[in-house]
């Protein structure tokens, strides 16, 4: 029922079935941000997702880093700021900033 533990439950199930899995967690927010600190996104080695770390703005980039973390086992700290609409880069249209920690489940 609880959002965060639903994510962990799915991640645990993936892990137990032998998949490579990573978890991304919102660890700091500044200004308006769509998801509060502690929000989590679980990713398996096929790119399947559970949960969220934003309103969908940064998930694509986070999944790429999660897949890399599953491969090399190293944790990552990602910073996302405001979207530059001209440059089509990844960011938050709402104007907030978030920091996301990505780690492999061992």
């Amino acid at each position, binding site marked *: *029922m*609880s*959002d*965060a*533990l639903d994510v*962990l*439950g799915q*991640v*645990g199930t993936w*892990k*137990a079935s032998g998949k490579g899995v990573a*978890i991304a*967690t919102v*660890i*700091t927010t500044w200004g308006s941000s769509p998801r*509060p*600190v*502690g929000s989590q996104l679980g990713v398996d080695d096929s790119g399947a997702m559970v949960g969220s770390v934003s309103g969908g703005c940064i998930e694509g980039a986070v999944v790429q880093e999660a897949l890399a973390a599953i491969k090399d086992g190293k*944790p990552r*700290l990602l910073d996302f700021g405001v979207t530059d609409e001209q440059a089509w880069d990844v960011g938050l249209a709402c104007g907030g900033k978030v*920091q996301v*920690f990505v*780690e*492999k*489940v*061992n």
Partner: protein
Amino acid sequence: MKAETIAALQSARSERRAVVLATRLSDAAEALVYRDKAEGPLAADAAVVAAARRAMEVGRSETVDVGGAKIFLNVYVPPARLIVVGAVHIAQTLAPMATMLDFDVTVVDPRGAWATTNRFPGVKVVQEWADEAFDKMGLDVSTAVVTLTHDPKLDDPALEAALRSDVFYVGALGSKRTHAKRKDRLREAGITDEQFERIHGPVGLNIGAKSPAEIAVSILGQIIEARARRLDALAAPKAAAA
């Protein structure tokens, strides 16, 4: 994160135990910090354990600096609990909506015809008098109680027990007139005016709710507000000191 850590977080939840997962961001080393113990490689660092317990008190996850290392403290508190007294029509919409909002919901009603699981699929239903059920469940600061029966002999004992505990929200369905009569009865039962003022009655935010589902929304809106105010109040002294 370790797979065992996930299992530990899940069992803490099912036991309604608060726990903080501390993670050092440089290498993902972890500690699981409970009220009475701490486990994992980071648990040897007393400063990390102390910071985790502070975060647990406030109930907010945050990233802190401990001796030059960045530590993320993820607070897992048991989900807020909603006890609905009266397995009535409004309860049939209130219970599933509250479940959707992550409340741990229990419906209590001593009347067998009402308190049936097929009227409340997926919700805990207890066929008991409210005060007896409360004794077994233990009312705490993360619990909200709402009475819906309209029947004083069912509602009043529940309200009395709730007002003598430190639940964060008490609501009672009924008009202003009903509520005034309720005040007289509870006063005779030894409830002080100050205690009585904790009851949200007539229950719910004043949004012109008419249907059972609308009334459920107004009640849940008020409960969410009460919980947010309480958490803000807990966090305020720390914000002022920073």
